[in-house]
């Protein structure tokens, strides 16, 4: 199992809280897909999550690719994106 960074732990909690998921944040594998077959999230979740992320980290998520799966591929890729763009 891969190591989980402090930011990943924090964002995993944010995901579970924002989307009222019934999983333990520690159970979210950083490399597992968040959408589709992984946690089964959809575009409404993506929108809710983008709001929570912009409020917590000041990062305005955008999908130049209309395929949101690319933006939210996994907890890890999401955190890398937050790390790069965060303003708070």
């Amino acid at each position, binding site marked *: 199992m891969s190591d989980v960074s402090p930011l990943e732990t924090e964002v995993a909690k944010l995901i579970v809280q924002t989307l009222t998921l019934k999983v333990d944040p520690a159970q979210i594998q950083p490399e597992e897909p968040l959408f589709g077959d992984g946690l089964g999230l959809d575009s409404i979740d993506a929108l809710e999550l983008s709001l929570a992320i912009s409020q917590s980290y000041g990062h*305005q998520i955008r999908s130049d690719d209309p395929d949101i799966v690319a933006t939210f591929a996994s907890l890890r890729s999401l955190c890398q994106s937050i790390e790069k763009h965060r303003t708070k």
Partner: protein
Amino acid sequence: MNSAALLGLYHANRVLAWENGHPITYGRFLSDVETLADLLPEKPTVINLTDDRYRFLVGFAAALVRGQTTLLPPSRAPGALAQVAREYSNSYCLVDGMEHVESLPSFQIPRSTGRQNDTTNVPQISVDHPALVAFTSGSTGRPRPHSKTWGSLVAVARSTGARLRLMRSDQMTVVATVPHQHMYGLEASIMLPIQHGMAFHVERPLFPEDVRLALAEVPSPRMLVTTPLHIRACVTSRSRLPPVECILSATAPLPSSLAKEAETLFQTRVYEVYGFTEAGSLATRRTVDENTWHVLDGITLHQESAGCSLQAPYLHEPVLFPDLVSLQGQHRFVLHGRGTDLVNIGGHRGSLNDLSQKLNEIEGVQDGVFFLPDEKGTAVTRLTAFVVAPEKSSEHILSALRTVINPVFLPRPLHLVPRLPRNETGKLTREALLGLLHKLHNEERHGT
């Protein structure tokens, strides 16, 4: 035979679509339609799966020219597509990528030649031609088809445009966050523009930052076609949107406080459109000013013993409202809420009976039911399901459900329970289901 033009206004050099900041003219559009119409397979019906709004429109228009009917499946879930494919087996799929529906041939839209048609030969389409078939989930488990004539689509577009005074303003450009494969998206982001000489952005922005960028890519005046969900996202994130002439919202009621915030923050006017698949868009309101809905010109409202209905010149018979409404004369009504079976999650309408039936068809499920808990706050309230399936895990049931229902309806959460709280007659009341949910929450809180 009566016909109506494909375009309400035609100038070859006028812009129809914006793609990555590049304009596509009405002249090139007619040329692309003519080319594609010659190439389409000889079949009566087509499932148009193209994601790009311009390419979808080229496919839709070419199908009209060829006298074909476009099918709008209730969702992109493989099971939903397969069901429509089974019932309309002599169809083909129009695609712009690698999409594929089992058992149907795919036809890829060729790249545009970029050629522009300078003639003024705008195709005329018979008003009686069934331009499309939209589906609602019937309570029987099978999607119910609703055929829309070209005449009805044009009439709705024109009366909506008249209400919004589109002909009196400069050429507006629509940016839409909603898919064009649903009735509202098709009416507001395709039919409204082509019947009023307007333009649209080919993409479908999702996040507030996407919306801001898409709006910035098109010239003013702009119109945002969207939903309460996206409006809330843009308001909450305090997006600095470029000037927007008006915002059109549909799919769920927009709280008046949110409409007010959006009007102030974005210096715009916010209108709501109300409609349902059987009748199409039928009423509007300026949310900050009025609670009542004003029907579009030509529509009249009637009180019947079974509920309220509406009549319009393009409807063959009066259509009953699926929602609870009370009439204020023949032209205005107040919306009170939905019937008990219908739910609307993020703009997708579904039937609880239909969803429960699909759940009960899954192998290993002995009993199961979907229901909508009380809505809380402004977030989207998701469905909950209770399932009796002693041999199966909730993951197994969820992945089986995912192939047969629109994913927005996936239960969140799905509770595995030993039995459902059915009463002596075998019925499940809402009170009993809420009681069970409450009990489960309490148990969770106390860690039992």
